[in-house]
């Protein structure tokens, strides 16, 4: 079963390796200076050599991302529930929510630096701003999607609004919530790097900038690689949590022991 799962990624793997091989050969053939475009093997080598420094920056970025996502989850859920509970708030807040996403974060990041300083706070804020929207929207849609007949059934049982929310709407919205969270996980690391780019003591963003300034292009690529891996790991982690948290959604049968 595991093998078949791996085999599903076969074509992507083959294509990826082919592209990397072309890249490697192109650089090695001297078509382009390795100062400008380092070869994949050189990038890996640089990553290993500088891992002691890069790992510290990675931990910082990871911390910002996880904190930012946590903030986004809390506020995303609260907002989604608020939208669900009051039709009035839905009409009032939803458009503002969409407008908030039109703010170019790249312009906002330097302002945050001026307002809140160079510490952790502004980075967490940027990440939260990035991740908040997909979580809130997916969750709000999930909450609103509950079947009207099911709501009627609960009403016939004389269930309160909160009971309907707790027993039907929230559990039913969990798959949507996780979809939003998966999207947020891929945005999150990028958000943190944006935040760091404009000024930070530590983090992959500032590390990239310093590397560019000292013409160490190979290290920029090494940091990009780490960023990609980090995003994938977060994505995978969210998928794993979803599998564990929503066993019913993947059609598994649990044989709970009778007590």
């Amino acid at each position, binding site marked *: 079963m595991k093998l078949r799962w791996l085999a599903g990624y076969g074509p992507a793997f083959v294509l990826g390796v082919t592209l990397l091989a072309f890249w490697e050969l192109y650089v090695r053939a001297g078509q382009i200076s390795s100062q400008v475009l380092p070869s994949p093997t050189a990038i890996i080598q640089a990553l290993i050599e500088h891992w002691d420094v890069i790992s510290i920056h990675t931990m910082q970025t990871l911390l910002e991302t996880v904190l930012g996502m946590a903030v986004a989850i809390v506020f995303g859920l609260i907002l989604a529930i608020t939208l669900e509970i009051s039709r009035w708030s839905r009409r009032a807040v939803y458009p503002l929510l969409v407008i908030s996403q039109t703010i170019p974060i790249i312009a906002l990041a330097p302002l945050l630096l001026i307002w809140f300083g160079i510490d952790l706070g502004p980075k967490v804020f940027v990440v939260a701003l990035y991740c908040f929207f997909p979580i809130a929207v997916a969750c709000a849609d999930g909450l609103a999607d509950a*079947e009207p*007949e*099911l709501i*009627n*059934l*609960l*009403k*016939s*049982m*004389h*269930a309160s609004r909160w*009971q309907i929310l707790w*027993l*039907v709407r929230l*559990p*039913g919205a*969990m798959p949507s919530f996780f979809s939003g969270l998966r999207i947020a996980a891929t945005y999150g690391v990028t958000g943190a790097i944006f935040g760091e780019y404009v000024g930070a003591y530590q983090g992959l963003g500032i590390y990239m900038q310093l590397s560019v300034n000292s013409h160490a292009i190979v290290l920029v690529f090494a940091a990009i690689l780490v960023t990609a891996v980090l995003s994938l790991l977060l994505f995978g982690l969210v998928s794993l949590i979803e599998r564990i948290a*929503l*066993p*019913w*959604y993947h*059609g*598994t*049968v*649990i*044989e*709970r022991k*009778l007590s």
Partner: protein
Amino acid sequence: MEPAKLLVQGVSKVFRDGRKPLDTLAAIDLFVNAGEFVTVIGPSGCGKSTLFNIVAGVDQPTSGIVAIDGDAQGERAGKSGYMPQQPLLLPWRTVEENIMLGLDVRRLPRKKAEREAYELLKRFGLADFAHHYPATLSGGMRQRVALLRTVLFNSSFLLLDEPFGALDALTRLSLQMWLLDLWQTFHSSVLFITHDVREAILLSDRIYVLSARPARVLRVVEVDLPRPRRSEQLALEQAVRLEQELTTLLLKEQQS
């Protein structure tokens, strides 16, 4: 004298959706005595489900009286076990947990609810499926689970809205027998909706035939076949005559 389990008097319903008011129910009268199995039958789209929503307390009538246990004033929600056409099981709850839904709404302690649910599953032959998710069950099984959920919430008065409509003939027959067993065990009063004449005759003590929209009661028939019912009784002369009579009536109504 004990009041009727359900008394519906002059209940009408007009939906004001958009500009044109939609007359759905026109002055319905019916009753269900304690322990009776009463069926409402009518052409499709005649407003049977609207009547059910009103009795279940999900909707309010435009005019008329609905009294459960002689109480016409109080809140109706929670006083009946309401089962809609779709099983509407919660996919994230196991069979046992689905059956407990009504008890959760009533805030019964978990342990007690679990015990009651398990007893019921055992009595009606579903104990092996207690910890399965609904997605793994067949259509007939889901319907059984939905029925047990209804019974566990309120066994004294059941509102069943075409519960077997989507099932194949054999599954349907075995579920009909299963329902009669359940009804006799709990001495429930039942108000049942169907558009299947044979099903109505097989199950009911009394049948109300509704007209096309706006629905009113066209005919009331007492079914005096002996109990316990068996499907063979549908071949009895009186049953066949009744079936033909009702089918003709419904056909005429569907066409008009």
